[in-house]
């Protein structure tokens, strides 16, 4: 069988195809130039670099001959001094020696919320008074005074709260400024509402609203005395710390859902913060 291939015809037919392929390649090469070549992803733990140490031949050589046994003296652990190391930032006192406090460590400036009988660095909070609290450790009592600077509060003149809360259907609409105002002056909030932790077999089972002042924001928000707040935005409140975690982030929240136990029925209150 004899096949005649005309090279000229073949080239004439293949040339446009090759040109098209080259154009595609060229376009992709140009695209490649503008695209990122690597992506930096965060590595959880960087590799440890070996510490530089100079090798002392003479000393090590001698050490092979004479091995000195040094008696190890156990280092005494420094005891944490509570009074000089912490700042008592806030006290919230309820009836019969219940409530919570906010303290901050001077060295790390981290804040912590402590309920009664809770411990901080082995110091247990035993009593809460107006202006000071009492910790105990090894049958000794330590009195910590409220930090003088934290007693200063700023007050803002505002319109009535009712004007800034709107209710449509089952949903409440709140002004952001209103929240900001209560965040800046937390004492105002505790003047209007009183809550206490409900414990069942040692575990927190929500926060009960003991009292709400008349004409307060919380009445306008649909809360009632005797309500037990079970969760906020589906996060169960297991301690004062959980509640305050949410309180700290409330500025960033757009929607808020409170799950409340009212007269043995679960009630959901929804708020949109504008």
């Amino acid at each position, binding site marked *: 069988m004899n096949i005649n291939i005309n090279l000229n015809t073949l080239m004439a037919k293949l040339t446009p*195809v090759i040109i098209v*392929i080259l154009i595609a390649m060229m376009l992709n090469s140009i695209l490649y130039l503008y695209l990122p070549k690597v*992506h930096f992803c965060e590595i959880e733990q960087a590799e440890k670099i070996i510490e530089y140490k100079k090798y002392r031949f003479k000393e090590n050589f001698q050490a092979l001959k004479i091995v000195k046994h040094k008696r190890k003296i156990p280092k005494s652990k420094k005891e944490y001094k509570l009074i000089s190391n912490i700042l008592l930032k806030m006290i919230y006192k309820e009836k019969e020696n219940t409530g919570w406090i906010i303290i901050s460590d001077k060295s790390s400036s981290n804040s912590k919320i402590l309920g009664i009988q809770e411990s901080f660095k082995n110091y247990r909070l035993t009593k809460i008074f107006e202006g000071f609290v009492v910790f105990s450790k090894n049958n000794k009592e330590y009195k910590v005074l409220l930090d003088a600077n934290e007693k200063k509060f700023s007050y803002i003149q505002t319109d009535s709260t009712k004007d800034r809360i709107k209710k449509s259907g089952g949903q409440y609409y709140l002004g952001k400024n209103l929240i900001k105002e209560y965040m800046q002056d937390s004492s105002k909030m505790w003047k209007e509402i009183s809550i206490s932790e409900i414990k069942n077999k040692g575990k927190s089972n929500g926060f009960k609203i003991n009292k709400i002042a008349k004409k307060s924001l919380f009445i306008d928000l649909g809360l009632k005395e005797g309500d037990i707040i079970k969760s906020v935005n589906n996060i169960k409140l297991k301690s004062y710390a959980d509640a305050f975690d949410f309180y700290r982030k409330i500025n960033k929240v757009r929607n808020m859902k409170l799950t409340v136990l009212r007269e043995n029925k679960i009630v959901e209150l929804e708020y949109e913060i504008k």
Partner: protein
Amino acid sequence: MKNVILRYVFYVMIFLIFMILFLPKMNLYYLGLDKLKTNKIILVSHDIEDKLLSFNMNNVMVNYENKNTVKLNRISLCTYIYISKLEITDITFNDRIKDYIPKNIKKLIITYNLMTNPLKIDIESTFTKGKFFGHVDLLERKVVINLDVSHSFIKDYKDLTKKFTKKGEYYSYEYKY
């Protein structure tokens, strides 16, 4: 004349095929990751397959604002000349948001067909309690999602379904961007 048109169609097809073959998919993936990172979304996958006509990622973790929110078993992006298809299988949401959306979505398919409708991107998904389908209208800049679910689903996911309105058999939601 007919032969000339056919020849040009052939060249266009060759051009498109080689454009897809030579496309720097890995670099486009890096670009996508950078864009997502600006929106605080981080995709983590250690199993990436860069094939001639497709780009696949296995065992993908999606972190939003440094929180692990979604786990995806496989993301597959296939491009065939005029059809592009993104298929995500086994989407598992974090327990924290399981009250808002179904925890497991079996499959999510996003298709773009240049021939049939170049101004529309189709979305289709199935999960244990039903399915949803919809589209993105590129001209009207609108996303339409229709839910085909049971009545119990509506009750279980009140937060999600309260934004949907009933239109015939389905619950529909429209979003303009």
